[in-house]
């Protein structure tokens, strides 16, 4: 009997070993190496000859924290997240709530249509939105000017570059969270809405007292994932603005890319990556803590 168990266990290891080895070599080792790399002055000279590599302790971190360009990237990333996360979640939730109404026609088709931008290639749709946001020929300014508003230099002015990119990002991703919200909304029994209606609750009241409590846990999950996503914006500024105008759309990941692969300061770039990770981690922890606190108040 024991020999059949070991044969089975051996087979099991045969099944998991390739994946575990791949994860160890191509994920775990690089992540740990990033930590070590961030403590060195790995640069273009070290790239040519490893003898030029020196251990510098926390110098990369110190230098970053006194670098205004890095703080600019942090500020822009924060700006993207503070504006983008609520905007994207609100759009997803709005679309989910109206698509959950039984009286809406062709619901299965709309569901797929609303989700479609999410699977499109980011670079391609960013190029498309670049054209739509064009100051002179873009369709968005055409809509604005035809209702009598002034044209906006969307991607050319530091004041509007972030909102302009966010319009594109929300268009592209709202369908994802919408599907998640829809799946949860479909588990809310109709009786609850019926009861709220009999109690004289309007649409807003029934949203607040029936819909919102039902989706609260999902809302937390979605907001955590969204924050992580918005902290990692890269291709959008790379394609649409190249970080400009006036550095207004340089995100942390964009800063890391330039630091690492344009200037070949791989030690410093690794420090950026780790700071980014710590920020995402910290925000996640705060969100979990806040939800526990709020959840505790309710009961």
């Amino acid at each position, binding site marked *: 009997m024991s020999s059949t168990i070991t044969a089975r*266990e051996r*087979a*099991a290891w*045969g*099944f*998991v070993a*390739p*994946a575990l080895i*791949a*994860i160890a*070599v*191509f*994920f775990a*080792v*690089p992540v740990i*190496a*990033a930590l070590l*790399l961030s403590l060195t002055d790995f640069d273009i000279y070290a790239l040519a000859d490893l003898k030029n590599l020196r251990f510098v302790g926390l110098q990369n971190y110190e230098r970053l924290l006194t670098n205004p360009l890095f703080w600019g990237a942090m500020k822009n990333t924060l700006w993207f997240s503070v504006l983008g996360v609520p905007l994207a979640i609100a759009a997803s939730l709005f679309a989910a709530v*109206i*698509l959950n109404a039984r*009286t*809406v*026609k062709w619901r299965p088709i*709309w569901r*797929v*249509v*609303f989700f*479609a931008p999410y*699977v*499109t*290639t*980011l*670079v*391609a*749709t960013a*190029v*498309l939105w*670049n*054209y739509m946001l064009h100051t*002179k*020929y873009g*369709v968005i300014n055409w809509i604005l000017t035809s209702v009598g508003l002034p044209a906006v230099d969307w991607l050319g002015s530091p004041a509007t570059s972030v909102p302009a990119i966010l319009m594109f990002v929300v268009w592209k991703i709202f369908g994802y969270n919408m*599907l*998640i919200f829809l*799946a949860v909304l479909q588990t809310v029994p109709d009786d609850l809405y019926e009861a709220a209606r009999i109690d004289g609750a309007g649409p807003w009241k029934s949203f607040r007292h029936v819909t919102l409590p039902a989706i609260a846990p999902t809302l937390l*999950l979605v907001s955590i994932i969204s924050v*992580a996503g918005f902290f990692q914006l*890269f*291709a959008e500024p790379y394609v649409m603005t190249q970080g400009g105008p006036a550095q207004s759309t340089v995100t942390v*990941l964009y800063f890391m*890319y330039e630091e*690492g*692969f344009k200037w070949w300061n*791989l030690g410093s*770039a690794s420090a950026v*990556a*780790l700071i*980014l*990770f710590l920020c995402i981690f910290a925000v*996640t922890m705060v969100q979990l803590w806040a939800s526990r606190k709020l959840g505790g108040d309710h009961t």
Partner: protein
Amino acid sequence: MKLRVILLNAAVALIGLIVLFPLAWMVSVSFMSTGEAATFPPPLLPKVWTLSHYRELFVDQGMGRYMWNSLALATLATLLALGFTVPAGYAFAKLRFRGRDRIFQMLIGALVIPAQIGTLPLFLMLKSVGLVNTYAGALVPWLASIFGIFLVRQYALSIPEEMLEAARIDGASEGRIFRSVVLPTLTPILVTLALFVFLGSWNDFLWPLIVLTDQSNYTLPVALAALSREHVQDAEMMMAGAVITVAPVLVLFLALQRYYIRGMLAGSVKG
């Protein structure tokens, strides 16, 4: 009540318009003659439909080469990811081995670490073994998919134990059981995972941008980004490039959307 129904349907149609109009317009502009899109007000449809931008992209800009790179990489990534993650996902769900649950918990914990952190060391590792600027280098991240293992495991948990036991009593080896009993029952999740990896690889930008340094190895997104920096003013050609890049994945998604959406919800809501 009537008014509410009309308002709801109007709101849905408006969102539909906002979602679909950019994509439809992208297609329309790609068929316009050069310079036509740079007029005000923006024209909705081409005066004369022309394929000249598509021709230029394939003949002069090497789009065929980039498309081949994208297709080959996405296909290989899909095959490799399935080969590595499916047996592991099944084993974590159904086979007993020492440390199984602890290893699985560690993997789930590691999901919070964004893969971007390891990007720079991974690049150096691949450089030291000469894999930068090769397909192999571009494919490496797809081997280490914790999410794929997780997805397959969740699905494999529902395989009835009796089915596996019956095959064991008949004297089938574990490898044979996996091939002829487990794989057929996993088919739906295999389609889902294949779709995720294929679209993920096709749409990926940062890693191919870093690791594929030679222009002849560019994938469509990398090539399109480079092209858009040179040809900003050439809206019609850029839209044609965007159509070529987006159309294959959009068609694939629409054909298999059931699998995609079901898998996506299984991975996020119940997870």
